[in-house]
């Protein structure tokens, strides 16, 4: 299936290669570089590139291209999903997935890749099993290893691979038993010129951090499970139970994992927490344009809208922007024409605004395209869909765990057209 993997950095250098079958010369990447050159933006490189003898499937994460070499028919999503899993694993192991981190830990990276694929077919991708095989590097362990010459490779054999619950290690022990669940919802919306909503939907995830001793069996139930329209589960969730009772019942993996991601049914009206008043105009023949932007809270259920960040790609004809924000700071990059305004918290009494003028290229005609405004924000302690966890119970173990649930709403792809 997957023949080889090449890691290519932003400047187009191959800094790591791994082959699972016969060696494929790195010159195969020339086709990739060609495609890279042709693409105007880094993310416009086609994910699948056919070459005379191979197919290159690549993903771009953290400004690194992961280029897999394929020789015959394989579902492209299979490879793409796997490559993303590789990146997630690196991130899990090294904290960041950067070129420097990979180069510093090249041996661990190699050991991981060796375990994750056998002859190009995924073997162990579950982070729990991998961590049993290869211990993640920590500062302390690096120091100890250098002195004592001991190893990163797990001494005991990876029994997790044989288990019926491959996602959980045996013999987990904690002095403080705790289980935290974060319900994070993201609003994706397109708002049109006049402020009316063209499309809006809520996507949510429940991320968990479970540190429980032994083999606990958890159930999580919701006050209003009917809200969840479309769900996808971590493999640990018992599907039948959900189908029958709308209860999440599972033996959790140890540590951090994504329990559930969901989509809130589209029948429900989505509350839009912020509004934007804008006036962006360029006059014909003038080298100046007006730019005004005001933000305000809309349906926030009484919670504060925080970490607001506004960004907009201004037309190519714009030379510079001369604006004054009522709060926060703004930057304008004259090369990429990207305007971004870090607003911070919205104060309903004193609405933040950004006003001023933009200068255009003299002589050029007025740009006819309108910039779109992208907004990011966070609202703590609120799940905008109204989803509420009812209870969390633990079976199978005797101790009383500490349980915590946190709600948060964020902007996903939140765009205002002007």
């Amino acid at each position, binding site marked *: 299936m997957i023949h080889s993997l090449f890691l290519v950095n932003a400047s187009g250098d191959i800094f790591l290669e*791994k082959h699972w079958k016969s060696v494929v010369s790195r010159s195969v990447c020339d086709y990739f570089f060609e495609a890279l050159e042709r693409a105007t933006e880094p993310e416009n490189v086609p994910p699948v590139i*056919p070459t005379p003898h191979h197919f290159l499937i690549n993903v771009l994460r953290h400004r690194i291209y992961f280029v897999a070499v394929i020789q015959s028919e394989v579902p*492209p*999503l299979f490879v793409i999903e796997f490559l993303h899993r590789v990146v997630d694993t690196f991130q899990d192991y*090294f904290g960041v997935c950067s070129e420097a981190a990979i180069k510093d830990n090249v041996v661990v990276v190699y050991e991981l890749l060796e375990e994750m694929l056998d002859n190009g*077919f995924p073997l162990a991708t579950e982070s729990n099993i991998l961590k049993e095989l290869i211990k993640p590097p920590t500062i302390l362990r690096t120091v100890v290893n250098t002195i004592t010459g001991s190893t990163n490779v797990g001494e005991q*054999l990876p029994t997790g691979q044989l288990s*019926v619950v491959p996602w959980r290690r045996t013999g987990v022990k904690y002095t403080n038993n705790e289980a935290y669940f974060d319900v994070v919802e993201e609003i994706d919306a397109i708002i049109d010129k006049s402020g009316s909503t063209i499309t809006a939907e809520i996507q949510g995830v429940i991320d968990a951090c479970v540190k429980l001793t032994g083999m606990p069996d958890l159930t999580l139930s919701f006050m209003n499970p009917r809200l969840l329209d479309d769900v996808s589960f971590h493999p640990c969730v018992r599907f039948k139970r959900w189908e029958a009772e709308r209860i999440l019942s599972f033996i959790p993996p140890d540590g951090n994992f994504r329990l559930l991601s969901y989509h809130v049914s589209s029948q429900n009206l989505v509350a839009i927490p912020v509004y934007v008043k804008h006036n962006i105009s360029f006059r014909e023949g003038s080298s100046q344009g007006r730019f005004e932007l005001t933000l305000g809270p809309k349906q926030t259920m009484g919670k504060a809208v925080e970490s607001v960040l506004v960004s907009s790609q201004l037309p190519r004809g714009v030379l510079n922007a001369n604006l004054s924000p009522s709060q926060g700071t703004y930057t304008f990059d004259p090369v990429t024409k990207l305007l971004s305004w870090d607003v911070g918290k919205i104060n309903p009494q004193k609405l933040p605004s950004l006003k001023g003028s933009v200068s255009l290229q003299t002589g050029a005609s007025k740009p*006819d395209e309108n910039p779109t405004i*992208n907004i990011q924000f966070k609202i703590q302690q609120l799940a905008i869909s109204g989803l509420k966890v009812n209870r969390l119970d633990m079976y199978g173990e005797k101790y009383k765990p500490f349980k915590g649930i946190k709600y948060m709403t964020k902007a996903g792809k939140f765009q205002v057209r002007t």
Partner: protein
Amino acid sequence: VSAAPSAFSDEKGGSASEPEYGHDPASGGIFSSDYKRHDDLKEMLDSNKDSLKLEAMKRIVAMIARGKNASDLFPAVVKNVACKNIEVKKLVYVYLVRYAEEQQDLALLSISTFQRGLKDPNQLIRASALRVLSSIRVTIIVPIMMLAIKEAASDMSPYVRKTAAHAIPKLHSLDPEQKDQLIEVIEKLLADKTTLVAGSVVMAFEEVCPDRIDLIHKNYRKLCNLLIDVEEWGQVVIINMLTRYARTQFLNPNINESLLEENSEKAFYASDDEEEEDKKAEPATLAKRKPYVMDPDHRLLLRNTKPLLQSRNAAVVMAVAQLYFHLAPKAEVGIIAKALVRLMRSHSEVQYVVLQNVATMSIKRRGMFEPYLKSFYIRSTDPTQIKVLKLEVLTNLANETNISTILREFQTYIKSMDKDFVAASIQAIGRCATNIGEVRDTCLNGLVQLLSNRDELVVAESVVVIKKLLQMQPEQHSDIIKHMAKLIDNIQVPMARASILWLIGEYCEHVPKIAPDVLRKMAKSFTNEEDIVKLQIINLAAKLYLTNSKQSKLLTQYVLNLAKYDQNYDIRDRARFIRQLIVPTDKSGALSKYAKKLFLALKPAPVLESPFKDRDHFQLGSLSHLLNAKAAGYQELPNWPESAPDPSVRNVEIPDWSKCSSRKDRKEKKVEKPFYSDSEGESGPTESADSGNCESDSGSGSASASGSDESGSGSESEESGEETESDEEEEDEEEEKKKRKKLDKTKAKKQAEESAERCTIHTIHQISCIINFDQFDMNKITSVFSQTLAPSGSIKMYELLHRIKGEGLAVEYCFSRQPFSPEPNMVAVQIQFTNNTNSETKNLHIEDPRLQSGMRIREFAEIDVLAAGESVTVVMGIDFCDSTQAANFQLCTHTRKFFVSIQPPVGELMTPAFLTENDFKKEQGKLMGMNEILEKLTLGEKCVNEHVIVERVTATANLSRVPCGSDKECRFAGKTVSSGCLVLVTVTTKEGGGAQLTVNCEKMLIGTMLVKDILQALSQ
């Protein structure tokens, strides 16, 4: 993290001799020093210290990772293959696999190490040895690999078997001549019942012999049922394979609809007269309709894949989606839309692939995605390739009702800064206009407005699209043609210029005054034009010459002369050809008479259709579909068969005894019951797949033989004192068995060359067979007896129906602990009916069992008459699937129906198993870790001696005692009835009334429940 390097180097100060491996070892050095460097690596590898070796290996691996050649170190590295240090060993493996191909002779040195590893008692070491051995691409060891794979394929560890499955494609690519032998191994592994193996062996099947669809028949139902528990990557492979399989074995579920659909679709776009024809044809097609009945196996596949739409893995979701698209009845395909739309939230690469597939699907099944129209709206931050694909989907989804919203959306897209995207949007508008007549004029007007756009690309694209639209109805739009003629002065984009020229030439009759003038201008600029424009100028000239030769004769001559000396031979050729055709000369042939017909024939309007049309002949989700070209190794998706092939090929026969003994080598395979699918299984086809398991048959058979003995003796003795005696008797019996076993064991050792471990299990089975035959008759007799005998007092009775509730009919049941002879993996439930009324009760029977999936009931024969005051006892069998879920059913008399349910205590879900002390220890060793549950307890007051403990435990659970040397320990063994998993119980007593209970069982749930029950029994 940033502190790490500094802390690291500080610490390192002390041990300066250690080289720093984290950094590039060779980067600093000039080329010549590489040799030296390698020399010290060799030195380090030769040293005695593991830390130095590790250091060296790490540096070497870093070199390999950067693509540097490290092959000259091969001899030094390969020496360390047997190193004790596990990390060194692993890194040596990495090196070996990378360079073995280049250093074939030296690589052979390492082979013996792996061969030794293949015999290791630890399954993980066996597996890893096989994995590395099979990864060494050296043709000379092919026979060794073949042997190793064959042996591993019948290993008792599923993990080793999985590794064997992985090794098959490796060997096949190394030496394709082994194919036939490998297919045999694949066939064997396909029959494996563990989820661990299923995905890997299907992957091997797909790589080695994807056309051997016949190998799948027998395993089809099992694969369907295991699917949900297979790891995600295996799921993808299995689903894709089953899609192909189903296409060859089942009938098209849409066979009737597709006929209908074709008609209606044709009618939709066709002109009126065609429609009439269709109407005539319709009765004929309707007459052809046959009632379609879906094969239950087809349904099984659809049902079992559906939950996987909820997978977190995009590849799995896509695999299920394509399966539904290709196999499901039209009405059911819709469910995949939601899941696919969900995937669009994922990474942009995933989006890209999903959108490609949605684009193809949305042509065939537009209605499916219509509710999600807004999810395909485009954001300015999407990458261009995603935008274009979304546009494609939106265009495919456009119809009369939503076209106005879509067009409004398109209008905002045209203002985007991304010009490629704008061009695509204009194309999309053009397509909407051609497909939906109502909006054609609106679209055309909108596009004409775009002609005054400042951006030339936008204008050019509009021209091209307008040209296509105008071709549909040129008469009404001469003003647009005039407008476009004016544009030729400003537009520079060749394609647009060519389009305008073609348009003027084609419709020169509508613009008789302008056309010659345009030609004049073009003649002037001819030499500077692009080739496609030049060709169109020649075309225009020719057409004008034919319609209006008075005004354009000279111009045409001039243009043709220019073209005659053009650099491009296409243009020279065209000029020569046209001159001959249109300019009448003496020599001009017969064709020139028809010149006008040739050039000014009525041309059909172009059909603007999606590039994704008909792409669904490729299996969706495949690489070939994405590229719209066949990739190497692509397996065609077969067309539905005309008539269904024989469905009975998928039936799995229930093996009989003779078969079992002939296939002993398969028996020791552990039956790993899937984690979640125990409630998942299907009745009907599944059941036969499950019960096709030799082991559980023989296991429960052996247990049943002596199990019946035990209860027989139990029922005779009413006092507990006597019962203990019978226990002792049993022990004697056990010892006898032990002796016999020993004999057999030695015999077996001589015969078989198998590993000792396997051998013992082997003999256990042999013995159990013997016992079974010996006591067969007796077994039969007891079971016959049990149907008439009233249950003995020592067995606990449960109430099924109270006398009052049952209006005089009282029903009690108990678990007789006797084997249920018709089906060995069912629990026998003895039911006693008592008629307390004054009249007869008739026709007692069971109806409407409502069971958890996978559970089965074997009803008792109907009781015709139960006279007043009498009672009768019957036995029924229930397969609880090793769960304590209740079996619900209705108990019916000739007048009434009663809802009742039977819930088994966990202890009744097992039958005794007979093990020797050694076997017990061995089996217990295999069930460590999560499968072991330890519990401390204080024994109840009455649990004074061993006998009481034994009594209590055996009363709680249907287990048999295992002999034990120590008097402080009591051991019990049993097997679950349904799946034959071992259940091992140990009670160790301590001073002062304390005790420790250990339960080992592969099924954790059973284990935990059993612990609770036994604890309760012992602490009373």
